[in-house]
């Protein structure tokens, strides 16, 4: 797996995509910092961008990368290499390079500007962790979607629908169901609803850490009340990581039953 990871990593890191991702976050983070001239306010804005864009870019890159490397994968399949190693090597090579671009892009401006305190540093790290988890989760989900759909248009469509659902439609449905069932105790229901959406999970995670209760929303408030801040952070982090592990594990067994 290491050898394949190495090839796909260096292939990716030299490519336009990771440079684009790096520059995007470099420019966004620096302009936020210099415009607001306040690192904690810049962080709050950055959070919103990270929570929506990391999943979107992860989705797009995951499908594109899979379809672009189909030829390479077919070549590898004829070599004495385990299937699992081929697919996981490809995935992790992609994921590491994208996550590194993201981290580098977002960190450099803060290093130049200064964090302005230990609190902000921890908050900043939380956003980095949340963004990395979201990137890796959505890369894995869309990689899987592309693997299952040999038709590119179908694969792209499906992956974008999944993102759209998790990032936008889900919240709407959730609020609507809260409204409809307002007479019932909904705490368990909303806990479950948060846990099954990685974007909600990461948003809750960051908000608990940043302690922005105004932005916490209903689910975050429930989370806070139910677990308390520190336990809430640990639990949301745990479930967010499951959103990376689950799809990656699915890739590793689904690839064994595929014809090429």
């Amino acid at each position, binding site marked *: 797996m290491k050898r394949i990871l190495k090839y796909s990593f260096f292939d990716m890191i030299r490519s336009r995509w990771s440079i684009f991702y790096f520059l995007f976050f470099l420019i966004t983070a620096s302009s936020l910092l210099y415009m607001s001239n306040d690192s904690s306010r810049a962080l709050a804005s950055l959070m919103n961008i990270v929570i929506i864009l990391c999943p979107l870019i992860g989705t797009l890159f995951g499908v594109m990368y899979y379809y672009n490397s189909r030829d390479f994968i077919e*070549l590898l*399949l*004829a070599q004495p290499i*385990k299937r699992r190693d081929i697919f996981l090597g490809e995935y992790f090579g992609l994921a590491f390079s994208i996550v590194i671009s993201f981290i580098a892009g977002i960190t450099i401006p803060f290093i130049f500007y200064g964090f302005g305190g230990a609190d902000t540093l921890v908050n900043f790290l939380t956003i980095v962790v949340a963004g990395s988890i979201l990137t890796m989760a959505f890369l894995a989900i869309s990689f899987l979607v592309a693997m299952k759909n040999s038709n590119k248009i179908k694969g792209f469509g499906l992956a974008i629908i999944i993102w759209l659902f998790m990032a936008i439609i889900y919240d709407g449905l959730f609020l609507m169901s809260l409204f409809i069932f307002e007479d019932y105790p909904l705490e368990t229901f909303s806990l479950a609803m948060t846990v099954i959406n990685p974007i909600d999970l990461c948003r809750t995670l960051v908000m608990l850490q940043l302690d922005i209760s105004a932005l916490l929303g209903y689910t975050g408030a429930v989370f806070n009340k139910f677990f308390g801040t520190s336990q809430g952070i640990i639990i949301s982090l745990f479930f967010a990581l499951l959103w990376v592990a689950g799809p990656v594990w699915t890739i590793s067994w689904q690839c064994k039953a595929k014809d090429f």
Partner: protein
Amino acid sequence: MIELKNIYKAYKKVPVLKGVSLKMEKGGVYAVLGPNGSGKTTLMKCILGMVLPDRGEVFVGGESVIKKHSYRENIGYLPQIARFPDNLKVEELFKMISDLRGQKGNSEDLIQRFGLEKYLSYKLSSLSGGTRQKVNLVICFMFDAQYILLDEPTSGLDPVAMIALRKLIEEKKQEGKIIILTTHIMDVVEKMADEIIFLMEGKIYFQGDQEKLDELTGSEGVEASIAQLLLKEEKGKNDSSQKNGFRFKLNKVAL
């Protein structure tokens, strides 16, 4: 030795191989023939593990190989459609495959045979179809594998490359390797094949050498014999469809 035991394979319920059993024991050239879509590529991919049979077993060198991977150290494969990561250079590709296989291949001799020296620093995406095929051939032969699977090896090759390929296959045969190839060019079959395997409708219609084939069909030469086999099949189909048509008419009358 390569052996297939009762292989079944369907793609999304469409059966392609319906109980194929095959044994290739001796070194030599085995030509897999059959009309387009008869499952020749599928058969090769089953040996290679790129396609998983629904039923049946595959043995390479006496070992059952389904869902295994290390046996591919002993296989060289030439795919029907040459596909490469386009952003690599030719020499980088050779190096990368050696590295990934963990085997030190010998590509120099093959590069010379196919006249690829001046293309070594070309990007793969900028090669012509025939040149890609030559690159493909180098990858297939560079590890001196015991089993060589060639899916339409002659496609796109010019006469010079064709002669080089024939010579190469001849040498591998002398070394006792098992070479399985598919082709639609009967001239290649007549000149090279020790054994012919004729695949149609998901089954093996014929396995044996050219003399046996001629005897069976009463024709001379592979081309004529295969044509005979195909015609017989066609006629059989027509007969049965006519019968159906007849029955249909009868039904109508009865109605």
